[in-house]
């Protein structure tokens, strides 16, 4: 038994993901939170604690975003904390919610993730510039896509992976997203479309990348006693893991995400998972770029190193394949409001395990699912294992 109490997810809520939404960040947080509470059949007064996840303040252009968003997350006069680990935030926030309940301190916790990237213009990419080393990287004009392109290229080189193979991920996820009511970039595209799209930073092309988005997602967490009272089909948080690698990213081999493996091992140990590909029925690895889905499948030990492109080619990772990956449509298809995008993945696994994913439902009565996000400066992994 990890923690004093077993923790379940009993409700989930999600707003549309769009390039621009009119709602303020607070209003988006409210919409997702309210939907999650309604889904759980609970009132705000049933909530004992609130955890907020939201990425860099510079996107929204609101400093102390945690404080700013608190009322939209229903946190007034409640124990409240904002957590932030870059792109890893969306999966990390439910983990922090898990601490609240597993510790025995609270019976319920509302977990809310929000991002409103459209506030920053001409492009949110500007807000990223100050995440780099001020002395060594910024004077060179470093951009975010540079560093991902460097990682992608290293991964391709190490395993001799072709761009065609990676492009299949974008094709799959954007197609999966056609069935997601909140999706921003759902599309029926081909591998050729990806390969012919504009080159941003070779090998990264336009259609390899997820969009910037506004959106929010929320989850209601409850202790076992409460969960069994409010629902007949709770989804249990049976594994949590998180890890950070060296912050000097030019000193490590970018071809493999060790930090995801360490986080996954922590979560699997807790969940008693010994053979991940066999015991996990579906996964939502973080896919802000198409190669990242493959990279993260390997880090999550769902296949051997360098094997993920082959599984994708063979259709194993399709929604009706043996190991569905990103049945939601992922960040590539649904959109990428940073923290909310990771939480969207946890919502998806929750809905899939309850058999409530509608047109996106993966076949075979899934019982165990995993969601993962990736963040900070390319070296943070957060992993959650959910079970019915």
């Amino acid at each position, binding site marked *: 038994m990890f923690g004093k109490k077993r923790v379940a997810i009993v409700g989930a809520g999600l707003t549309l993901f769009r390039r621009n939404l009119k709602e303020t960040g607070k209003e988006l947080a409210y919409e997702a939170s309210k939907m999650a509470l309604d889904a759980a059949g609970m009132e705000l007064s049933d909530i004992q604690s609130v955890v907020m996840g939201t990425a860099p303040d510079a996107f929204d252009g609101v400093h102390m975003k945690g404080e700013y968003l608190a009322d939209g997350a229903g946190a007034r006069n409640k124990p409240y904390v904002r957590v932030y680990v870059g792109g890893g935030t969306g999966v990390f926030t439910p983990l922090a919610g898990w601490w609240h309940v597993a510790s025995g301190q609270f019976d319920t916790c509302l977990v809310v993730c929000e991002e409103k990237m459209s506030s920053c213009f001409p492009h949110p990419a*500007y807000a990223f510039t100050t995440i780099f080393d001020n002395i060594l990287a910024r004077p060179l004009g470093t951009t975010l896509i540079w560093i991902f392109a460097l990682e992608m290229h290293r991964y391709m080189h190490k395993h001799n992976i072709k761009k065609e193979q990676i492009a299949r991920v974008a094709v799959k996820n954007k197609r999966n997203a056609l069935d997601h009511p909140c999706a921003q970039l759902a599309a029926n595209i081909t591998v050729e479309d990806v390969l012919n799209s504009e080159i941003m930073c070779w090998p990264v092309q336009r259609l390899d990348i997820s969009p910037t988005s506004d959106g929010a997602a929320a989850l209601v967490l409850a202790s076992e006693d409460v969960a069994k009272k409010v629902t007949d089909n709770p989804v249990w948080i049976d594994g949590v893991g998180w890890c950070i690698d060296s912050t000097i990213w030019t000193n490590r081999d970018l071809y493999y995400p060790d930090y995801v493996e360490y986080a996954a091992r922590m979560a699997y140990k807790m969940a008693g998972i010994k053979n991940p590909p066999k015991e996990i029925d579906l996964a939502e690895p973080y896919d802000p770029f198409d190669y990242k889905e493959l990279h993260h499948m390997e880090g999550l030990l769902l296949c051997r190193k360098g094997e993920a492109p082959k599984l994708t080619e063979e259709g194993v990772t399709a929604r009706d394949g043996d190991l569905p990956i990103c049945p939601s449509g992922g960040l590539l298809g649904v959109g990428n409001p940073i923290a909310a995008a990771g939480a969207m993945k946890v919502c998806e696994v929750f809905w899939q395990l309850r058999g409530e994913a509608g047109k996106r439902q993966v076949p075979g009565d899934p019982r165990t699912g995993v969601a993962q996000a990736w963040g900070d400066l390319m070296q943070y992994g957060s992993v959650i294992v959910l079970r019915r």
Partner: protein
Amino acid sequence: MSLEKITDPRRMRHWLGHMETDYRYTLGIAGERFLNEIKENARIMGARCKRCGVIYVPPKMYCEECFEKLEEWIDLGTRGEVYTYTIAYVDMDGNRLAEPVIYALITFGDAYGGLIHKLGEVKPEEVWIGMPVEAVFKPPQERKGSITDIKYFKPAQ
């Protein structure tokens, strides 16, 4: 590797920079309606929770207490009272202001919350907590749907 007492990093080896960001904040669902009422009708609105009865000003889309969606909007008029105030003698960079500026939190009856705004047509020494004040609006053609469509609050007659 001694630690010297240096307060200006520019005296050490350093790199200068800034964050090249601009922002556009949408007003949101409730905010857009609130500011539009100021712009079009020169009136200050609150939003009432039909479940707890709380009136929020500025209006919100939702009740902070019970999460009810707020759909009932109430005209609060243009008068309020000074709940608390401060007198600024320096600007953001610490420079002395030619004329002090009075900033106040203005409340409206029983409504929860209030508006932060300037006070005008009054001397600092004449302001008191509880003083009734009234909004002075810009002329309609100059209003843009911003909180600055209210020029300031002045003592009410």
